Structure formats: C-alpha cells, structure tokens
C-alpha cells in the first residue's frame, strides 16, 4: 500500500515533537470519506429542498375546467409548439420575461401585462417554461391577448422600428424571404403587408415557416383566464390575493 505515496522526498519529521507525520493510507482515506460525505450532504440537502420538494408540489397540478367549459391551460397547437422551439433557439428569453408579478410587487399589472399575476398552474403543461430574468423588452406572458394581430408581429420581427420607433430589439430579417413579384400569379402564403417606405421594390416579403410558427406561438401566449375559486394553483391562496 505504501507505494501509493508519491511524495518526492518521503516522510517529513514534524517540527514540533519529532513525531513522524505519516498517516497510513487506510486512515487518511477514511478521513477523506468523512469530509466528502459532510460536504456532499450540504448540497444534497439543498437539492431536496429546492428541487425535489418544489417539483413534487407543482408536478401534481392538473389542468382545470373553466366556467366556460374549456380546460385550462389549453394544449398548444403543433405549430405553436414549433414556434416555441424558435423562441428558444433565438434566445428571446434574454430580453423578455414570461411571468406577471404579484399585484403589490412591481408595476406588472398596472402596465397591462396581465389581469392577474402568474401562478404555477399556468405552466403545468410546459416541459420548458421560459420565465426569464430580464426585461430589456416587455413581459410577453400575455402578448397574444394584448397584440393579436399577426401582421403586426411580422412587421415587428422584420424590423421592430417599423411598429415601435426607437426600439432596441434586434431585427429578425433572416426569418423572412423576399420573392420577386414578377411572374407570380398568386400572392404567396405568409406575405407581409409592408408599409410603402419599407417595402422591397419588386418583391414580396414573405414570412418563412419559422416566422409563422414563432408568431403562432406568440399569439398563443394568453394566460389571463380567471381561475375557478377552488382550483389548485400550486401556491398559497394569500399569495394570489395580495
């Protein structure tokens, strides 16, 4: 066992009492084990507390029946689901949150970003929620209700400054094609109604499949429904009322 020692000079005499400082390997191994266990325990405890238990608490949330007979949250269409993938791969989350804060906390409700604050139930069907931590742009949790116009979104994505002068949102022109008007008999699907001064002469500007999916997803973002009184929202009741 002693060949596991790789000190360049072998044992060192202890300065104070001349005793050899030479832990036998099994003993020092045990010590390491103890420390390792202690150290791991601290992080495993937080794992249980912050990951396992919350997961257990909110994973059981079931969609509820609204007063109008619909289930909530509704399932997203396949196209909208594809759009969410586009939202994720283009990283919209680094500028936009998707969570409406509580009434007395921040100006979310008064800005019209929602009629009520978001609760865990709203996300129960989402494999990957994109809650976000940054608001360089506005919260988008209910953008579908706030801005239901497909054409507005196309224009805005093509060049945000068309719809929102002074915007610092980047243009996503690569989500659009330009097709020559000449020689076409029909108007292509996904054509964008460009204002005169921004149009591309002699061309249609057309939303690609990705752009159409993305906008479909944005329009599906509408989580303002009033929840039934007794629905399990996944949070404490007083948290919602405040």
């Amino acid at each position, binding site marked *: 066992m002693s060949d596991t020692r790789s000190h360049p000079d072998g044992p060192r005499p202890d*300065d104070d009492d001349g005793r050899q400082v030479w832990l036998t390997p099994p003993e020092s191994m045990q010590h390491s084990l103890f420390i390792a266990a202690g150290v791991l325990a601290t992080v495993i405890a937080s794992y249980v507390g*912050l990951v396992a238990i*919350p*997961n257990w608490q909110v994973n059981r949330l079931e969609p509820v029946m609204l007063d109008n007979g619909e289930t909530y949250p509704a399932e997203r269409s396949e196209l909208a689901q594809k759009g969410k993938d586009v939202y994720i791969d283009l*990283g919209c989350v680094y500028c936009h949150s998707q969570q409406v804060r509580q009434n007395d906390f921040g100006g979310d409700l008064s800005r019209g970003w929602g009629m009520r604050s978001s609760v865990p139930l709203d996300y129960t069907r*989402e494999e990957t929620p994109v809650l976000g931590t940054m608001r360089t742009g506005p919260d988008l949790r209910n953008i579908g209700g706030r801005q239901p116009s497909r054409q507005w979104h196309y224009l805005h994505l093509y060049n945000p400054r068309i719809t929102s002068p*002074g915007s610092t949102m*980047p*243009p*996503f022109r690569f989500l659009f094609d330009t097709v020559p008007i000449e020689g076409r008999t029909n108007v292509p699907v996904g054509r964008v109604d460009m204002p005169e001064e921004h149009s591309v002469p002699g061309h249609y500007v057309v939303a690609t499949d990705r752009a159409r999916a993305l906008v479909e997803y944005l329009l599906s973002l509408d989580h303002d429904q009033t929840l039934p009184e007794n629905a399990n929202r996944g949070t404490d009741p007083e948290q919602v009322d405040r």
Partner: protein
Amino acid sequence: MGDSETDLERDAQSRKAIDASARLPVVFMMASGVFWLLFGTVLAFIASFKLHSPWFLADQAWLTFGRVRPAHLNTMIYGWASMTGIGVLLWLQARLSRVRVPLRKSLIAVGVVWNFAVLAGTVAILAGGSTSVEWLEFPPWVAAILGALFVVVMAASVLTFVRRNVEHVYVSQWYLFGAVFWFPFLYIAGNLVIHGTGASGVAEATANWWYAHNVLGIWFTPIGLAAAYYFIPKVIGRPIHSYYLSLLGFWTLALFYNWAGTHHLIGGPIPLWVQTVGIVASMMMFIPVITVAINHHMTMVGHFDKLEYSPTLRFIVFGAMSYTLVSVQGSLTALRVVNETTHFTHYTIAHAHLGMYAFVTMVLFGSMYYILPRLTGREWSSGPLIRAHFWTTGLGMVLYWVGLTIGGWIQGQMLKNPDIAFIEIVQTTLPYLWSRSFAAALMSVGHFIFAYLVGRMLYEWATDRGKDRLPPMLGGDQ
C-alpha cells in the same frame, strides 16, 4: 528551528518536484483558459454593442443577440473560468498536500476533450441548438461529456488529498475539496433534472436557479477563496489572521450558499415558501462573508504597501474585496424591497459580473501570475504590461459595474411606474449601455495584453529561451 542548510535545500527541491509534476496538465488547462477568455471577450463585445445598436451584425441568425449572449456566458464559465480554475485547483492541492499531481496523462486528455466539448457546445448555441435554460445552454450531449470529465478531475483531486503528506488540512483544502465534490454532483443532477423528464413547469425554474446560483456559489467561490487563502499569506509572508474564523467561514458557506438560488425568482409564480427560503439563506450568507472579509483584511493590515510590488497580490486583493462587495450586494438584493426594483434589470447583470469578473476572474489572473512562472521556469516578460493589464481590467470593471448598477436601478424605478411608456425606459438606458461597451473595450485591451504575456512566456518555454532571466524567488539559481 532544524538544521537549516539541508532543510532549506530539501524544501526547495520538494517544491520544485511538485511544480514539475503539475507542469503539463496545469499549463495546458491555463493556456486553454486564456484561449476561451479571448473567444468569450469577442462574443461579449458583440453582445454588448448590440444592446444599444441593434442593427449591428443583425443579418445572420447565428450572430443574433439571443445566441451570442449565451455563447459568451458559456465560453467564459465552462471555458475560461472552469479550465483555469481546475488548473489552479490541481496546483494548489498538490502544493498543500505536498504530493505530485496524480493522473497526469488522464488530466491532459481531459483538457483536450474539454476544449472540444466547449467548442461543440458554443457552435451548437450559435447554430440554434441552445436550450435557453440560463447557465445550461449547452445541448444535453455536450453536458454529458463535461459531466464525465468533471468526474475525472474529481478523482485526481481526491487522490491528491488522500495521498497527502501533511497532517494538517489547510483551509484552502477544505474549500477545494468542497468544490470538487459539489460541482460534479450539481452539474450532473442539474442537467438530469432539467433536460430529463424530472422537472417540468415552474419546478424547472427552481431547479434552474438552484443550479445557476450554485455554479458561482459552490464551484467558483470555493476555488477563488481557496486561492485567496493561499496567496495572500503566501505572498506577503504572514499567516492568515484568524485560522478559526476561516474554518467557521467554510462550514457556514457550505450550509447556506446552496439554498440562496431561488432569490432569482422572487415575486414569480413559484410557491412563496421557496422564495422565502432563498431570501433567508441569502441573509445567512452574511456570516461566511463577513468572517472572510475580516480575516483577509486583518491579514493585510500593515502590509498594504506590498500591493505595489506584487502582481499576484494586487489581483487577488482586488478579487477578495470584490467578493465581500458582491456578497453583501447579493444579500441586500434578495430583500423584497430591493428586489422589486432591481429584478429584471441591468442591475443584475452588473451584479453577476461583480461576482464572475471582479472576484473570480481577477483571482484567477492573480493566481496565474504566481503559478505560471513556477511551472515554465520563465519570468514574465514585462512589468509595465502587467500593470497595464491590472489597470485596464480593474478600471474597466469598476466602470462596468457603476454604469450598469445605476442604469439598472433607474430602469427598475421606471418600470414600476406605469405612467412611463416602455419605449422611454428603453431610451433612458441607452447611455448606460454605451458606458458598458466602453468598459468592455477597456477590459478587452487588458485581456489581449494578458494573452500576449502568457503567449510570450509559453513561447520562450517551448523554444527554450529566456531561462537566464529567472530570479531566485522563482526558483532560479541564486
């Protein structure tokens, strides 16, 4: 004490033998780290510029802000800071345990594969494969590779510790030992829960912030503190002020830091108790932070003049002071009254850089100034350039933090007031975003200077030049 001539000789030889064993793996990790530092710096600058000038490089999907930003973060975290941090960790552990670095060949292989993994992950993000889960943007298959590599590092570290030739376990060892046990668990568990089917809905968000906060808290912070606890006393030649405090600091950090992450979700759609736990843990962090602050300060008292003479000391003391500042700021930011304003603003970005840059990166710079000459047997080629590196990065960081903290605070105040149109907020933040780009330019200059110094040293080493300039302090001939 002791018959000095032979003891002296033996101590010097033993130190040299340990450094020699660390040479290849540690130099490889650090050189790779510097490469990723430059790569990440370019990405950082592009991202920063885009925020005030959105037309900049906007025509290609792979350069869009939402990809460049996570690419920057991941190259810095998993490329620069992790690789360099592992280099520092291996060297420190070998020195403190007084044994050679074990598994040297495997560690070099780890470094090689690591570089490919980070490259693959970064390309994947730019190509549209990002997961948009903050701090875990690499696709799961890249994460799987990195997770496996972390386990090898952990094995090397445990072997070093088990074989140690010193009875006493110095406080840096506690931190390093903590880091190598915490992080692989954190990384693997975090990835499994988030990319697997373990969590969905808002539980994924709590898992996300448990992970992301802990990357700083129980991976980079322990490495940074271990380095500070080693280099401050070692450079000035004076033992740490209160050894007892340092151990108290370690265990309180271990107990509280990893509960604090959910303060990133205050006010959000997660159960209230989860937020409260995060806030309470953030407050408890005052204990380890203040013990560390007092300890480092008291060690330095009477020795501040030495800052003028030692590059290592300058960077490390800058880093250690930033640790106190970032931690106090973090605890205060977790308070609901403060968080209401600062959440979702550039204030948070400033805070994150105070941690990852002013603390971690500066400590890593300082450590490299000490370690690399001892591994390559070459002295740094220019004093003025080292000073230039210090002042550009130091001032750049201060400017960065001040600008975005003020800008973020104003942004937060305006967001709370529904009478102010959103676009007006966007316009108000612009000057602060410009100040950040300016700061980024300063810091970039520093990084290129540093890369030049490291490159020059490695070149002299590879071509067997410059040996004559080695002073006795670095183990050169007397």
